[in-house]
């Protein structure tokens, strides 16, 4: 199945694209697969500290994805 991923963070800014992942893949699995293909990575701990939205709703990293899902990973930061 195909899912669409977008990363918004200071270290993974402007990364967006689609990934073909196996049926039943979780968010974490899709993220790892996509980033590996881009030569990047996001540790599990950092992923769990991020806000993950699937189709604009907040979910956890172990959420199982569906075909066509839109995944956004927002890295949290402290700002002024």
């Amino acid at each position: 199945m195909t899912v669409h991923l977008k990363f918004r963070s200071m270290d993974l800014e402007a990364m967006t694209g689609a990934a073909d992942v196996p049926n039943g893949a979780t968010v974490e699995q899709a993220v790892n697969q996509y980033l590996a293909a881009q030569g990047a990575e996001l540790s599990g701990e950092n992923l769990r500290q991020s806000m993950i939205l699937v189709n604009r709703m907040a979910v956890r990293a172990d959420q199982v994805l569906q075909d066509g899902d839109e995944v956004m990973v927002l890295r949290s930061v402290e700002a002024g």
Partner: protein
Amino acid sequence: MNGYIGKMLFVNLSDGTHEVRELSEEMARNFLGGPALGARVLFDEMPGGCDPYGEDSMIGFVTGPANGTRAFFGGRYTVVSKSPVTGGWNDANSGGFFGPSLRKAGYDAVFVKGIAKKPVYIFIDNGKVEICDAAEIWGKTILAAEEVLFEKYGKQMNAALIGPAGERKSLMAAVMNDGHRAAGRGGSGAVMGSKNLKAVVVRGDQKVDVPDAAAVTELNKTIAKEMKEGPRAAYAAGIGAHGTGVTYVNSCLSGDASVKNWSGSGVTDYPEEMATPLGSPAIDEKYMVKKYHCSACPVGCGAFLNVPSEKYDLSHSPRPEYETQGMFGSQMLCNDVEALCRCNDLCNEYGLDTISTGGTVAWLMECYENGLFTLDEMEGIPLNWGNAEAMVAMTEKLVTCAPGLGEILAMGSRAAADKLGRGHEYLVVASGIEEPQHDSRLAPGLTRIYQYDPTPGRHVKGGYGINFNFEHNYEGTGEPDKAGMIGREICNAAGLCMFGQIIMGALQAELVNTVTGFNYTPEEYAKLGIRSFAMRQAFNLREGMTRKDYTLSERLYKSNPPHDGPLAGVHVDHEKLADNFFDAIGWGRDGAPAKETLADIGGLDDVSKMLYG
């Protein structure tokens, strides 16, 4: 004494006298500087229960030992006073160059009591002190007043000053410096205005000694390496490139920033395509003309913009900070850069805190949207969600304290609700202070800070902070909350920038020891942080404030307005967080330090006597 000038100036505006007192090594070692030292002095000098606007009330301008030493991030100073909003302790810090400049002028701190018979400013010239007639600058906006002072005293001059809002005692009045830097929160600008004090003007060339100047240089190199290669390298690069607003779009989508006066969610009400034009990367690409660094800062998170506008002069506008972007952006469903910059400039010119200003206008916007006020009562301004023109118009009324609605709004949302007799259900305040653009339902660690820091409603005070805890598991929060509090208390007392503290992490302790030579052990460092927190809170305890007096709005913590998105249905167990924190720092559950804790941390015998006899 290394790290200090060793002198504090005390001015009495009622009789026009001043005296210089020694800053003893014992006091410096026990309280360091900034809000901790300020709290010690104000606790000693002011009587409990005094009127924030009375003769006995004091306002202080307090540096930290890092100011003027070339140590990285050592550019911040603190304004201290009794808050006319909360009735308790107030401290707010500001960057730029005033702190180091005050030290060059010959003092570690200036404390002012009394009320001048007519508007004055204090001029400190390499140690010499003069109280001057402020007729020429009273009534002027910040830049206009600074222009007069530069003409008079030259480009080496620096000043901490109030704008017309402080003169009129707006409860959101800030103490400004360097044109656009603000010690914004808690109403210290109003206290300054109540004294008829327009400015503290400084000029000088004195130097601050440190034990080993070469060690400061070496430490700066280590910090620079940490900035490039450490765990916060991406963070440092991000805010260096685009300032605090680099996170704006993320924050709108994640639930960090408030949307629609805390009633909406970014994914539904303010999605990515709306937020992006107001994010700093987009703003910088179109409008940035140059960066701005505070004193001794290697990051430089500030900038100036040139925004073409037919209505306003935005040719040299300071880039709005994240808080301001949120308040005049997602908070009111606006994404107009011109309007954002205009509101930011208005707050800078008239001298107000952008968080409380935006929060108050947003509160009124929701009231109007829900039919609590007629258009007539809004003085003809249709303050609807997303109406940028109306947002600017109402902000103009507020900052100028315009007769009618403007002067009511200038007292803040809680006072406005009380005066107008409506809208309390839409307030989002912590003990009367408008909450900032970090929703504590997303980062519950902030709830304890917003509610129970001696200065409520601040996102820049220390604690568990912005640790996103999506599980909302409140076990074991006490120790990290305590550790966060200690680090930030010392950061503020030392005169350091909190972004520097975030970037350099454990190097902060080394920096403090390097500039002072105090060589605090880890245990002494921890006690220093807790002592600072205790001293600030002692001021509140003497005012009779107990745990029950620190309030949060029903809106976020009890009634959770209906909306979807990441925060739907979230309730924060804020009292559990507070219990954990008070247990961890050795306070009672009533929010007062235990006698044994005071004995252990030392330096507060008078506080112990006040509480326990």
